[in-house]
């Protein structure tokens, strides 16, 4: 009987890429892979530690599995495992706590566990790029990891401490990874890393890499995931016009106040950010720009916050991830004074979320009457859902084929809780 292995992934796309790669590996090893802990022999929690809330969510997932009777092997990995390894080992003595550098060796660890060759997880030598291309994953888009770590040292961010120094994956490995996953049938690849714009392998930077990716003579589209606005070059703007590259960037802003950006040690100004947005919208007036904004950073005044609020309207974001500033020990911001009271952070967060929601609806409404190329990722209960090239969710009221691209005419917009899906009908 097949062993059943469950995954829960928190946080960023890099974690999703790594989970997908592990899940695919386990499928190849003959395991049944699911997305929860129910009735599993092994449960793997790929944690996040970017905020206090992420830590809480990660702990909740582990506790929830244990409270619901998970008695099998438990593996806790991801950034929280790097940041709080000792604490986790103490709290969950029967769990394997595996840091990011060893994450790729989890399949060997699980096999060793069941072969009664129980290995302490820290004896496996893995690698941050040592993941085989994933054939079977939880997504219809294939994540392609090109880079790990970050050297920017933003004052609020714990990631350099838990992901380590920036390292870039060899170009040929990336190109081969893409050829393989497109061969597996993926229609879209998502370029992923901690700080992808700083990609540099033997002098080949991000734009030069991207050029080689789009030059692969296969049929697929490329999505660039989260990117920092601090090192764009002309070649990058030119490449964004390429038909394989989808018109969407998750361009991290964090704040629209110049003084807060300096205190955050971000390596750009709001003026530069705005200019980048203008250039993107010159390439395509509907270019989707989504972003992260932190509210309540130490020293953020009402006037500073107002600038972030104004930016949401001014830049017509397609989506904004709003974060309340969360103090992370061992960062520069943790030692800053002028802490913003929690209740002010909550109020600002609510206000920004409302503005972001309005902006999202406005952004999406412009697609009504237009055609989008939708990659279907969900088919159930007589409807299908997927994402168009602008990374906006589209719902179609008929059962379609998963992982296939459809030309869809957008006919309306439908509110579903906080989400606003476009509604469309298939044209082909």
């Amino acid at each position, binding site marked *: 009987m097949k062993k059943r292995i469950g995954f829960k992934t928190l946080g960023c796309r890099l974690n999703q890429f790594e989970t997908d790669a592990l899940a695919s590996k386990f499928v190849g090893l003959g395991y049944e892979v699911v997305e929860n802990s129910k009735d599993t022999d092994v449960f793997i929690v790929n944690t996040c530690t970017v905020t206090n809330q992420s830590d809480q969510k990660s702990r909740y997932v582990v506790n929830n599995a244990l409270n619901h009777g998970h008695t099998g092997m438990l593996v806790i990995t991801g950034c929280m495992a790097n940041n709080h390894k000792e604490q986790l080992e103490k709290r969950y003595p029967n769990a394997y706590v595996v840091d990011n*550098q060893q994450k790729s060796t989890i399949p060997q660890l699980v096999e060793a566990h069941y072969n009664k060759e129980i290995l302490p997880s820290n004896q496996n*030598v*893995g*690698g*941050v*790029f*040592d993941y085989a291309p994933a054939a079977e994953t939880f997504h219809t888009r294939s994540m392609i990891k090109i880079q*790990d*770590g970050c*050297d*920017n*040292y933003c*004052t609020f961010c714990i990631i*350099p*401490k838990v*992901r*380590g*120094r*920036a*390292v870039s*994956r*060899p170009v*040929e*490995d990336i190109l081969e990874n893409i050829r393989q996953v497109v061969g597996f049938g993926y229609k879209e690849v998502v370029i992923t890393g901690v700080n992808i714009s*700083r990609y540099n392998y033997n002098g080949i930077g991000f734009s030069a890499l991207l050029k080689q990716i789009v030059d692969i003579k296969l049929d697929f589209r490329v999505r660039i995931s989260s990117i920092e606005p601090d*090192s764009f070059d002309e070649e990058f703007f030119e490449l964004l016009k390429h038909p394989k590259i989808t018109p969407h960037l998750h361009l991290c802003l964090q704040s629209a106040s*110049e*003084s807060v950006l*300096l*205190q955050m*040690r971000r*390596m*750009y*100004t709001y*003026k*530069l950010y705005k*200019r980048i947005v203008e250039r993107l919208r010159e390439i395509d007036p509907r270019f989707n720009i989504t972003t992260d904004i932190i509210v309540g950073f130490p020293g953020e005044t009402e006037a500073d916050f107002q600038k972030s609020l104004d930016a949401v309207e001014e830049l017509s974001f397609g989506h904004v991830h709003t974060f309340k500033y969360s103090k992370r020990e061992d960062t*520069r911001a943790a030692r800053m004074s002028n802490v913003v009271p929690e209740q002010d952070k909550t109020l600002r967060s609510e206000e920004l979320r409302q503005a972001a929601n309005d902006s999202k609806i406005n952004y999406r409404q412009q697609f009504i009457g237009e055609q989008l190329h939708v990659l279907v990722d969900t088919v159930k209960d007589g409807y299908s859902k997927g994402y168009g090239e602008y990374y906006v969710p589209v719902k179609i009221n008929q059962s379609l084929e998963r992982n296939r691209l459809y030309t869809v005419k957008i006919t309306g917009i439908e509110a579903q809780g906080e989400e606003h899906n476009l509604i469309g009908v298939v044209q082909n």
Partner: protein
Amino acid sequence: MGKGVPAANKIKTDLHEILDIRHLTDSTFVLRIEKKDLEFEAGQHVCVGPPNGIHTREYSIYSAEQDEYIEILVKEVENGLVSPSLKKLQKGGYVVVEEPVGYFTINKDLPQTQKYVFIASGTGVSPFHSFVLSGKAENYTLLHGVKYASEAYESEAYDKDKYVLCTSQEDKGTFNGRVTDYLKANHFGADAHYYLCGNCNMIHDVYDILEEQGVSTDNIHAEVYF
């Protein structure tokens, strides 16, 4: 998977012997430590801390790329966790050093004749000291903002006609006033590359002044000191 790919990218930390300490003022000193195998690019910084503590702080490298040692310029911060401990260390002692990192560097693609304006406040002069000693920039002007002329920190390293000491609390520098006052009165042009290193307020103000003078943000590079 290609050969030579790092198995992990953990931050490397090592103990480095203190080779010398030069006290420049009552509160500011240069710590010279052994280089070991640390290679760096002028403008990068290292995290340094006392050997028996868990805290480190970022310091821009003060010495030249080609030197056989590494130097950092440290100002003692009252009630600080790291700098007072570093000040108490002696030659022959050790400090913890993380490998160099950072992007506040000179763009190698720019011509040798490129005009640079370096603007520093206080110990923010450190990366510019490294730029100049490493031969990274020939056509430069360094504006150094301090309170008193005694804080000129080994200014003999720079060509006299390229170094402008702006003293805000006494009239003993090249210019009596803040670097921002000097910059308002003296334009260096939109084609120069401006490197700013120092406190947030100075950097913020300089950005505004340069914008008014028509300098593109592409030509402005900043490193904030806290």
